[in-house]
């Protein structure tokens, strides 16, 4: 089995100590975390943790099963076809009937957001920006009915030729 990156989305209770339980589990079981980002979801009591971990399918299965054992972990899903991000990214899925599409496309354009998925009843918008702009964008979309939000937390690389470790 070949080793590769897996993006795992985890819904957890949003209270103190949860992140340390999760990062501790990765450390003591020897799972390699490539990146980890936490953000609150549309439900304030629940956080979404997005973890990119490295390993073969056996490791991935163990990561999921061991995470499931944590009482604070509510749901786990490994997202296939992971993409690496270098800024804070928000994916926001809103209710969208076909007659509202044009309106939403306009809002997206003004805010520099992309339309990343469209279905009969929903539209998913993607915005990579700083935290304040993300919150304002969310407020703007609330009237349409927000179905789900995923935020990665900030991950960053230095621009240009210089890098932090040089």
């Amino acid at each position, binding site marked *: 089995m070949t080793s590769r990156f897996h993006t795992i989305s985890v819904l*957890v*209770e949003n209270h*103190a*100590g949860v992140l*340390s*339980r999760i990062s*501790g589990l990765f450390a*003591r079981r020897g799972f390699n975390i490539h990146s980890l980002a936490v953000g609150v979801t549309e439900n304030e009591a629940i956080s979404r943790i997005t973890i990119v971990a490295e390993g073969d399918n*056996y490791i991935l*299965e*163990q990561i999921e*099963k*061991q995470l*499931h*054992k*944590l*009482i*604070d*972990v*509510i749901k786990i899903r490994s997202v296939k076809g992971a993409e690496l991000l270098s800024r804070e990214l928000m994916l926001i899925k809103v209710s969208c009937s076909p007659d509202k599409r044009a309106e939403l496309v306009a809002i997206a354009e003004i805010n520099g957001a992309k339309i990343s998925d469209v279905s009969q009843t929903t539209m998913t918008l993607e915005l990579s920006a700083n935290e304040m702009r993300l919150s304002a964008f969310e407020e703007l979309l609330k009237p349409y009915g927000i179905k789900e939000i995923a935020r990665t937390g900030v991950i960053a690389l230095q621009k240009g030729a210089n890098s932090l470790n040089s």
Partner: protein
Amino acid sequence: MTEKMTAAKALVKCLELENVSTVFGYPGAAICPFYDELTHSQTEHILVRHEANAGHAASGMARITGRAAVCCATSGPGAVNLITAIATAYMDSIPIVAITGQVCTDQIGKDVFQEADITGAAEPFVKHSYLIKDAQSLPETVKKAFHIASTGRPGPVLLDIPFDVLLEEIRFSGAADYAKLPEIRGYKPNTAGNKLQIKRVIEAIQEAEKPLICAGGGLFNRYAFTLMREIAERADIPVVNTMMGISSIPGEHPLSYGMIGMHGKPIANRAINECDLLILLGARVNDRAVLALNQRELKVIHVDIDPAEIGKNLPATIPVVGDIYTVLEQITELLPEKKHTEWNKYLRDNAESPPVNPQYQPQISEKTINPKNFIKILNRLMPDDTVIVSDVGQNQIWTANNISLGESGRFMTTGGMGTMGYSVPAAIGVKKAEPLREVIAICGDGSFQMQMMELATAVQHNINVKIIIMVNNRLGMVRELQTNRYSDNLTAVFLDGSPDFIKLAAAYGINGDYLTDEKNADKALITLLASKKPYVLQVSVDERAVSLI
């Protein structure tokens, strides 16, 4: 009626509502409000002499009653001392609820006197933990703790409660408030096995020519071993067990072939290596238990409550996630009778262990006893329903391989963690729960010296445990390892400086005797068994005696 009371009082009430009759613990400043309230309760407190032993005693009690047992300690060093016991319960899947005092909420993180981040420190070893900062949430948190500890895969749950929280007044009506289990979103353990998987289990058993059950410690949950015996008998399936699974099937049962693993019986390991269907029941395929199985084609049915154990150490052909009792019930409903005469005959014909390699033959010097014979003599003399708690090391292997319990006997040890100093406090916990049963702790002179302070606990609280110390003046298991793997370069395994254990027991007011000759073993053991008070028997064992083979 909703009353106002301190959280400490509510905590005591919650324990009463959980039918906790005994708390094993050691007080300190931070947990004093709880102790103060405990004096007004029917719940008895047993003062141990080291916090870890409060945890081991709770473990023993939980194992024999099948219900979560409680230990407590104060903040800082008290809590930190508990960790060994919490970790032991975690590895052995034993339900305990550990309560620790904590410094005042506004002092947390300030490195004040006797402060330790116990929820952080114990995190790798707990099923779950709570630092209770909101006093009003205490009753529902206690309820959750007992639920989590005792359902699903059992394990330790830690409740860390700051001093000021214990003193805060809350509204609590007792039974009415406590009856309903609060929602725990992230905790929904499976109970019944998937029906399709159960069907596949039945088919696999039908097709197999050489099926084998491997019985693990999980079978003691809800007495599931009774169903395992029924299944084995109905389909004529031979049974081997892990160390944690000892006494899940009587040693003399015609289908029983003993313990597997590095220190197990040759026939049990042979059965594992030659079967065509391995049925793992509540066992997690530990590295010491099953060696090199991955190297051959083998059908494996793995029944476990914890999905993470399935496929972790051994790929499973038919995984069944569920409560072992419920799953075995599902299997018994569908399983037809079958005979495996040839397979059983083959195992029975080869059951005799091959002659011991002379290299490993213990040289029995004068004034020592062959420990294997000693365990067999004990086995013959003790009552059927005796509970044997073995410690860790050579004494554990000698006991595990030579004890042969009947229908009602019970064997306990820490097979997962292997914590020295477990046997005496665990035996105290067992005896407290089952005062009418004979409870015998078997340890070595190494492990005894990690727990000998608990003699005082037994005396103080009139807990009539019997203690057998196998004395060879060595850390025998390590000595054996150094002999075999390090060219007999023995180091740091000599126990010179140890006291005379019988004189030590006498200093506590405990009777005891020395046994140095096998001829006197019957008499010495009869005296031990007849004693109505704690009793210590010091058994001299040759320093070269081995546990392997």
